[in-house]
């Protein structure tokens, strides 16, 4: 260890991966519906794609977690995005490719992907 910068680099590298152990309300959460209906519709690869993408982009303060049945089984796989201070956005009929776009457009660039949202689904 030659410098504080080196220490800081290790800190940043590790913090992202263990920060979800803090009991905190802050930060963005992406929740995937993983009840039987969700899994049958292909929620598992969606979840994996989300986790991979978060890791690949080294995003901090993002939690990807799963929940039970969201209640609209015909629209599964469903994911919900909670950004602090904003309304929840619900995306339906997800696929791994769509999930990656949600990360890049909604999470990174702060522009929800309108065409995948539940309000667009039945149009």
């Amino acid at each position, binding site marked *: 260890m030659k410098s504080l910068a080196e220490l800081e680099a*290790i800190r940043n590298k590790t913090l992202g991966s263990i920060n979800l152990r803090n009991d905190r309300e802050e930060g963005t959460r992406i929740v995937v519906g993983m009840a039987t209906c969700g899994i049958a519709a292909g929620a598992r690869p969606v979840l994996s794609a989300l986790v991979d993408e978060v890791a690949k982009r080294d995003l901090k303060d993002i939690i990807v977690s799963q929940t*039970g049945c969201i209640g609209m089984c015909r629209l599964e796989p469903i994911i919900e995005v909670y950004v602090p201070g904003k309304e929840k956005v619900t995306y339906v009929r997800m696929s791994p490719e769509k999930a990656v776009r949600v990360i890049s457009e909604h999470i990174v660039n702060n522009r929800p992907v309108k065409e995948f949202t539940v309000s667009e689904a039945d149009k």
Partner: protein
Amino acid sequence: MNIVRSHVLVCGGTGCTSSGSEKLISEFEVQLKKAGIENEVSVVRTGCFGLCALGPIVIVYPEGAFYSMIKPEDVETIVQEHLLKGRIVTKLLYEEAVSEKNDILPLSETQFYKKQQRIVLRNCGVIDPEKIDEYIAFDGYKALGKVLTEMTPEQVIDVVKRSGIRGRGGAGFPTALKWEFAAKQPEGVKYVCCNADEGDPGAFMDRSVLEGDPHAVIEAMAIAAYAIGSEQGYIYIRAEYPIAVKRLQLAIDQAKEYGLLGNNIFDTDFSFDLEIRLGAGAFVCGEETALMTSIEGFRGEPRPRPPFPAVKGLWQRPTILNNVETYANIPQIILNGAEWFANIGTEKSKGTKVFAVGGKINNTGLVEVPMGTTLREIVEEIGGGIPNGKKFKAAQTGGPSGGCIPLSLIDTPIDYDSLLSIGAMMGSGGLIVMDEDSCMVDIAKYFLDFTVDESCGKCAPCRIGTKRMHEILEKITSGKGTMQDIENLKALANSIKSSSLCGLGQTAPNPVLSTLRYFEDEYIAHVVDKKCPAGVCKDLLQYTIDKEKCKGCNICAKNCPVTAIIGELKKPYEIIQDKCIKCGVCESKCPFDAISRK
């Protein structure tokens, strides 16, 4: 390191390990693989979460679901339901952590954690103590970096001084003063030592810190070394703490690999190396001069002070010795500032204190509270009260060197000075709760039994005096005591206190003196009435059969191991007192409650 979506934290402290947490870890690995999600969920072995009574404990993040008393059979359910499908298994959760609406409450809102404030234990149960990167992620070694690159040794001592921190190993000596003495000694070889002997029976605070966050102690020792101008440190730890020793060694190795120990740390002129020295578990080796003698390779016996270790310690060189918990506070003080620390606690006792709470209490475990928290808050709120609806009688702090706090003083704020003023002491943080079924004379005898065993024998008052005191207590508890014996106890106690060489002898009479102070009536009951009011001292007990209630069923006689019960079927039975060994089996077997103990 892979980013995973969920972390399963399994307590790997000594308590949970002995209740089977290792098995849980391997079972989690098997079940995660079976579910095909082993790459998304990581299983982490952490240090103690504190709630040992409910172990083994598993916490699943990000939800923060706190599962208690988990058995290997439960693992499959948690994996399939919670980790795969996202349905928290409410029935396995710690019941305090579930709200009325069946949601999970943040741990910080449960009774057990609500009044706690975690400085020393902040990483325990949060990080994997075997990974230095995780310690660094939560600001580890940042304080050392700051000290080495921005502060002079004098500034470090000044911050420690203004924080007001006092030693957590027992005596409560101001830490900065000790450092200052050592720093002022002429340049040359100096040593920094850590006392991890923890000999107080029932105490496990230091062990838990070393098991859960070993790097905090290493970092603090390096800071102390910089402050006094030392290049070599020793951690003295008992060999009976195998998990702590292993993690500590691993942590030292990792710190060396990263260059956080060794030569020219952070590219400065400062070099520091650290070694572990194993102790054999003698209580007296926790005393500072005995500890240093033991590190030097001799039999661990105390020597007179002065010279104080800060002037002439290890190998006759200036040495500072601090307790594990004292050290664990230091990096936080450096990072958050002296004022932050000085704002916590009471006027003369700053910061928090970790207690190992045991005995007759529901939530046995490790708690960290601000100084000044009352005993009542610890017992009734955090500790969840006394089991089986029994009443609180007293609590012992400071172990064999300390004293008891009776019910009438349960609202005493716990800090160094209040405890001393009521005849107890802070000690290292063991806190043993006693209920109405505890006999205070028996408790005093128990602690004296311990000191008689642990006295090193170097000086007569302690070696012979404690033995004599123990004999008198033996006499009193077997019903042969006299009022003169009580007076003799007091006289002996006072002369042992004033004439022993080291702290062990000087404090050994405390449990007797404090029980005499608050419970003299119990001593008198043993001596005058030949009765043990709590029903503990066997020689003073009699089991008798109530002739009215006895139906002559013969069950007691069949169960008595020494055939001390005689009688005829369907007629009242009788106990032959000379034969009775007072095991109490008959009382527990009688279907008619006809047998009583008096």
